[in-house]
């Protein structure tokens, strides 16, 4: 099977290690993994702002460069949701792009979904000496139904124990442009998340969406928490958790 890794623009710019961790995990499945070279952004910021024409332009670009693979894997519930749920909506009435969008949507999976769906359970190469608490990102959870998969995978990491936090399904307050445009409100929401994280008392908070993770880490640090690690589950599974 030829798998395309859709790196996502945030991982590319803000945390390349997540991309390399995803590559390592996908390679461990024994499949042929490709990083389509022209990929940039799935267009979600435009869609979220309500700009349908721009969202369509970027969706067409992504469809064209991703549609020739057996599977497309995304280390982000948010971007995976954009491809899977929004692309078909954008081209619902389009005789040419509609079928292409739907075909791509059917082959696109978020990373934990993909890894958990393999017949042979993945043996994570990573080790983690400590406890983690898992933040369910909204788009992955309520959009794609991702809940059990990352937990099952993390449960197979040697040394790792899972400590659930209260309200793990509650939004962290990121919301893309929301965090910038409504900074006060966003800060209040992420404060509640930080309090839940602190109460769980885990060594690390782990999630599957870099936007949420940057938001949570940024607020934890600003509040003076210098010790709680904030990690993408791919980094934990792949053992790329060096500080």
């Amino acid at each position, binding site marked *: 099977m030829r798998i395309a890794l859709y790196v996502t*623009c945030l*991982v*590319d*710019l*803000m*945390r*390349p*290690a997540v*991309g*390399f961790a995803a590559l390592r995990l996908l390679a461990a499945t024994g499949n042929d993994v490709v*990083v389509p*070279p*022209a*990929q*940039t*952004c799935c*267009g979600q*910021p*435009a869609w*979220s*702002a*309500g*700009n*349908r024409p*721009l969202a369509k*332009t*970027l969706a067409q*670009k992504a469809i064209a460069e991703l549609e020739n693979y057996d599977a497309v894997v995304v280390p982000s519930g948010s971007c995976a949701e954009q491809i899977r749920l929004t692309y078909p909506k954008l081209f619902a009435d389009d005789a040419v792009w509609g079928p292409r969008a739907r075909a791509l949507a059917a082959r696109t999976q978020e990373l934990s979904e993909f890894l958990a769906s393999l017949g042979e359970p993945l043996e994570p190469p990573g080790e983690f000496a400590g406890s983690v608490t898992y933040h369910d990102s*909204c*788009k992955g959870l*309520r*959009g794609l139904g991702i809940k059990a998969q990352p937990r099952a995978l993390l449960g197979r990491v040697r040394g790792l124990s899972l400590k659930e936090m209260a309200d793990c*399904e*509650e*939004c962290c*307050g*990121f*919301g893309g*442009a*929301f*965090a*910038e*445009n*409504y*900074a*006060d*409100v*966003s*800060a*209040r*929401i*992420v404060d509640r998340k930080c309090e839940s994280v602190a109460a769980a008392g885990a060594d690390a908070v782990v999630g599957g969406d870099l936007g949420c993770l*940057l*938001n949570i*880490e*940024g*607020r934890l*640090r*600003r509040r003076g928490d210098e010790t709680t690690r*904030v990690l993408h589950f791919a980094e934990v599974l792949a053992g790329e958790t060096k500080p």
Partner: protein
Amino acid sequence: MNANARHSQAMHFTARAADKVRNPVLQQALQKAKPLFSGKRAKAMAALPDDGLEFEALREACAGIRDRALNDLDVWLEIFEENARARGAEVLWARDGGEICDLVIDVARRHGVKKVTKSKSMLSEEAHLNDALAAAGIEPVETDLGEYIIQLAGEAPSHIIAPAVHKTLQEVEALFAEKHGRPQAARTSADIPALAKEARGVLRQHFLSADMGISGANFLIAETGTATLVTNEGNGRMVTTLPRVHVVITGIEKVVPTLQDFATLMRLLPRSATGQTISNYVSLLTGTRADDESEGPTKTVFILVDNGRADVVGSHYQDILRCIRCGACMNHCPVYFSLGGHAYGWVYPGPMGSVLTPLYTGIENALDLPHASTGCRQCSSVCPVRIPLPELMHGLRQEQQRRGLRPWGERFGLRAWAWIAGRPTLYRALTRIAARYLNWLADGEGRIRLFGFAPGWTTARDLPVAGGGKTFFEQYAASKRD
């Protein structure tokens, strides 16, 4: 200008929000209420299978009932009107808030009304009815405990089913002491029944002396001409049965075809709102007092209100009219619980308000509300009538874009970014520069504390930087060359 917009503060959302997040007393009240609302609902929904019910199937049925009513709204309203008139009620129609006030004052004058007791009605908030009544020399008394509190405080409701949820116990104690003319006491939550009793003592006098009662209606039942009231405090019954005259003010969208439909909706309304299988009181009010009856009003008037609703019927946004006002969307909204309801600036707060306010007051008069959402979908996952609230907010965002209502900087920024994202070579070059710049700003600390390109972000957070100055694609290309 839209008449509703004159009373709306929705254009000041950002400033009001900034104020609300920094109000420690408000935050304390909200923090306390949040787990109560969501916890009670969750428990009720978890118990549905014990009654042989299933949430998804039920809400499918409830949404279907509401759709059936809305798809032929004119027909069901005519059937309602005919049946209500046959039972002796008068049915009047109001285009907007001003007409509501005129009609109510006219009814009051015709019947020599000096004092009005009110059960909770959000329509009367849309109309600013209390102000109009007072100006006409008629005393309005709110009798729902929460509404009574905020009437004493001179405030507006901050929640559609818990109007005083923004107030702490201490604030209520101070208010009662001042308004009831007694010394202030130290109170704990064990004293809440005593405070309720105190209010009841005052309200009892009003119930007995009022000439007219005003209520809303949770639903109108077309086949019987009935108004239904779903309440917990019993004040609704006092308001609708003791005075000579009863006026029901409700939106035209509240009609449902049959009693059976009402029964189905009641499976989810109290459970979604307060986690109750059924509320303490469910009243079905039909017509006036019959000759052989000893109780009830001798005059019943229905005022059925448009105030923006008719324009939503048949539009992209019709699904919002399914709303049964349970409050579950705001009870599960991270934005609502960071601000309370007043920040939203008009009558309806939370996700349903972020859709209704632009529709009823004008999209151009509530630009922030559809954007003041993280898109978390917690609202639509609990809505008992499956309103796609995030999609409706998104529809409003698209309409703002189409009509050129977004700020110039945002529109230009989006276009420039999308133009670059469409050109991979340029995009790679610019992100390489950006990665170096971010790394330079992070200055070996792994974080940026003040970032000029996203000042909002760094007002409350650091920006973690972890690429060592190189993008993924740069590092990946280098690893391929090695």
